[in-house]
């Protein structure tokens, strides 16, 4: 999942292909059904909980055109729905109702 986001975030050709045909691009990566579903639907909250490095995810959210407040809210909603972050060093340390920077 992180490898896909790495390729997508830095390569405009992959971005164009992804916009045109998401499944075709995702077929090239070794993804579980849950991971694939989250990427196909742009489910930022679930991708966050699955443990994607926040820097990869932030760039992806920007690529999807998500405003900052929506992106933060989507991650909080993901934790509410799916539980704590499962891997990596980008765990949430604040409460689900906190608004740290007023967003």
């Amino acid at each position, binding site marked *: 999942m*992180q*490898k896909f*986001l*790495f390729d997508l*975030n*830095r390569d405009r050709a992959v971005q164009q292909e992804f916009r045109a045909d998401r499944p075709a691009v995702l077929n090239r990566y070794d993804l579980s059904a849950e991971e694939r579903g989250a990427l196909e639907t742009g489910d930022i909250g679930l991708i*966050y909980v699955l443990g994607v*490095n*926040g*820097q*990869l*995810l*932030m*760039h992806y959210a*920007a*690529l999807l*055109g998500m405003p*900052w407040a929506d992106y*933060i809210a989507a*991650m*909080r909603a993901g*934790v509410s729905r799916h539980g704590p972050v499962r891997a990596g*060093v*980008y*765990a*949430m*340390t*604040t409460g689900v109702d*906190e608004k*740290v*920077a*007023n*967003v």
Partner: protein
Amino acid sequence: MSLVFAGICSHAPGITGRTHLADPLITKEFHDAYRGMGEELAAVKPDALIVVAAEHFGNFFMNNMPSFAVGMADSYQGPIEDPQWLGIPRTTIPGDAPLSLRLIREMMQTVDLAYAEEWKFDHGIMVPLSFLTPRYDLPVIPMNINCQGPPLAPLHRAWALGEALRRAVDSVPERIAVVGTGGISHWPATPDSGKVNEEWDREFLRRWQANNKPAMLSYTDEATYRDAGQGGFEIRTFISVAAAARGRGQVQFYRPIPIFAVGCTVATMSIEA
């Protein structure tokens, strides 16, 4: 001696991308301090600027992650992010491959480096350049310390990298400026974004200003993660600059600006023999 300038600064994407959500007066004070550092840098007429950065998967990934990398190209492109999101237009930044090669060869005497003839700049370098060299007319040599994908090089190796950098810079006739960019404490790209441990930051800056090597190297990654977030791993870039400059630091600006997700920092260090 050809190191002519040393400084450190923040690079969070909000600094340029989310100004519309921030207090305009505080933003102006910070941006003015940042541009002031650029004027100081220009005043010493460097031939090249080395940016000691902590990139975020613009180029390096866990399939083949170097602890330390140095750019060796005649030009670089950036930002990789959506220019509108970052608030910085896409541009080409001049490099200096022959100078990179000379510096890399000397650094390799004591530190193992990766080199990269292709390098796309992300916000970690573009945000600093947008203030320091806004016309993108000074050759830049990017250096990277992996601060994103653990395991990370220990802090004493970041110090050794800075020492190697200084020795290399002293070995070339060009006038070189060095700027380290990173966070101090911060929890970027998480729902905690905006959280800053100001006390921890101020203590780190005290150690950095005093160039207190044992105190700077005494942090463990476990304690840093707990007290300063994963963004705190980027103190490596500031430590390298202290090792290279050998001087005393002066903080021009420090203030947590939550919507920028970091304790915004602009500081310079004197250069000692």
